[in-house]
């Protein structure tokens, strides 16, 4: 009959991981059933093995065999739970050896009582701090309370006059302005166009960005010969992109034409100005400009 000392720690571990040969297994099983000392060693070796597993000390092969063979009984599962709890309780250093995902799982395990107590303390501290603030420092609290907002002034019935008080007539622009609050009124790029400018010397217009922007062309006229003008904007190829009727002169020598910026693309353009004389249209002049 063999005694417990005949079995090495390595043999005991191999038995627990189920990797003894069938002959070794039979001999070991018989001794294990009748030998108290061997049984005690096996019992302690089980703790050693579960601890090594929980602390990530097993080789990849041993780890796989452990997972297949070991946690099959309730008792062993409980041992493993305790090993894991011991690891979390005492061995933060060993946690750093685990893979990143496992480390995060261990560290950010909100089921642990420590996390629950921490959250409870945090909530309590926040409540106490709030109560202290409200009672002792009301002026700080006032900063967080919403201030009463005065009602905005109502839009005027003629916003085009409010924004462009000197503009006598600009229907398209007037409609846009009427829907916008004063601070959101479209801005204009203003260019003075002279009838003497040829296409080669056409002034450049910098196109503003935004759907509500306009390009204002100030068309210089020789003298105020009519009360109403019509302006049409065309590409050099002759395609009409915009027109405006019922324009009036400004200070008798200039007609303002506002073109929505969204209609204009970079390129060369022509503006045809006509006037209405006795009900029939008559060409006044043409202007050229270039959009960059």
């Amino acid at each position, binding site marked *: 009959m063999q005694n417990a000392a005949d079995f090495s720690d390595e043999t005991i571990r191999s*038995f627990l991981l189920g990797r003894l040969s069938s002959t070794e297994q039979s001999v070991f099983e018989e001794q*294990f059933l009748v030998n108290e000392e061997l049984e005690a060693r096996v019992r302690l070796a*089980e703790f050693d093995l579960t601890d090594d597993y929980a602390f990530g000390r097993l080789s990849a092969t041993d780890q796989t065999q452990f997972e297949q*063979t070991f946690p099959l*009984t*309730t*008792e062993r599962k409980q041992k493993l739970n305790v090993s894991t*709890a011991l690891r979390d309780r*005492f061995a933060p250093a*060993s946690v750093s050896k685990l893979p990143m995902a496992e480390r995060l799982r261990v560290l950010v395990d909100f089921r642990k009582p420590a996390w629950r107590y921490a959250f409870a303390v945090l909530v309590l501290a926040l409540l106490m701090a709030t109560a202290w603030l409200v009672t002792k420092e009301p002026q700080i609290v006032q900063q967080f309370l919403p201030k009463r907002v005065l009602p905005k002034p109502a839009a005027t019935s003629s916003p085009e006059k409010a924004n462009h008080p000197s503009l006598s007539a600009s229907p398209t622009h007037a409609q846009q302005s009427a829907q916008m609050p004063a601070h959101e009124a479209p801005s204009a790029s203003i260019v003075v166009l002279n009838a003497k400018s040829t296409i080669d010397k056409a002034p450049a217009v910098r196109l503003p960005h935004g759907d509500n922007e306009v390009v204002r062309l100030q068309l210089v006229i020789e003298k105020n010969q009519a009360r109403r003008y019509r302006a049409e904007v065309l590409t050099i190829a002759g395609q009409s992109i915009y027109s405006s009727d019922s324009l009036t002169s400004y200070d008798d020598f200039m007609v303002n034409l506002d073109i929505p910026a969204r209609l204009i693309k970079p390129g060369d353009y022509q503006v045809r100005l006509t006037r209405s004389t006795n009900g029939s249209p008559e060409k006044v002049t043409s202007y050229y400009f270039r959009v960059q």
Partner: protein
Amino acid sequence: MSPAKKLQLLQQEDLDRLLAWLDSDPERAGLIYEKIRRRLITILASRHCSVPEELADETIDRVARRIEDIRDTYAGEKALYFLGVMNNVHHEYLKRPALPPRPSADEDEGAGEEATYLCLDKCLDKLAPHARRLIEQYYAENKRAKIDLRKRLATEFGISLNILRLRALRIREKLQVCIEECLCQYHLR
């Protein structure tokens, strides 16, 4: 008497006979019974059996039912008789079609873990100061530092490395028993 009642009575009679066969002192017989059952489970697990507890209980049932026949004739280590029966039970198990693995009770795991942590703290508090210090230091370091630390610990405690390991594992075993008792109380509440 209903068949179920009759079966239950027979099983109780079998068990009583088994315990009487194991030892004339009922208390000692109970301890031997538990010891044999635990060892059978360990053996079956090492054979990669997925239901070691079930097969161990089946083995014990079969032995209990045969006590009448073997009581006067069997000579030798009684535990080894269980091993022979267990081999048959295991052999039959291997012939059975494989059953799908049982789902683990995941929903209970969270609560179980929490209880384990609480019980661990309680049981650590119950340890003698030197035992607590030993266990804290024994588990404190990682693999690389483990050997150095344990050598230092062994020197500090004036014992060999092997004795240190045995002491630590025995404290660990005590902790396990304490935690299991604590968990029982926790679940009874």
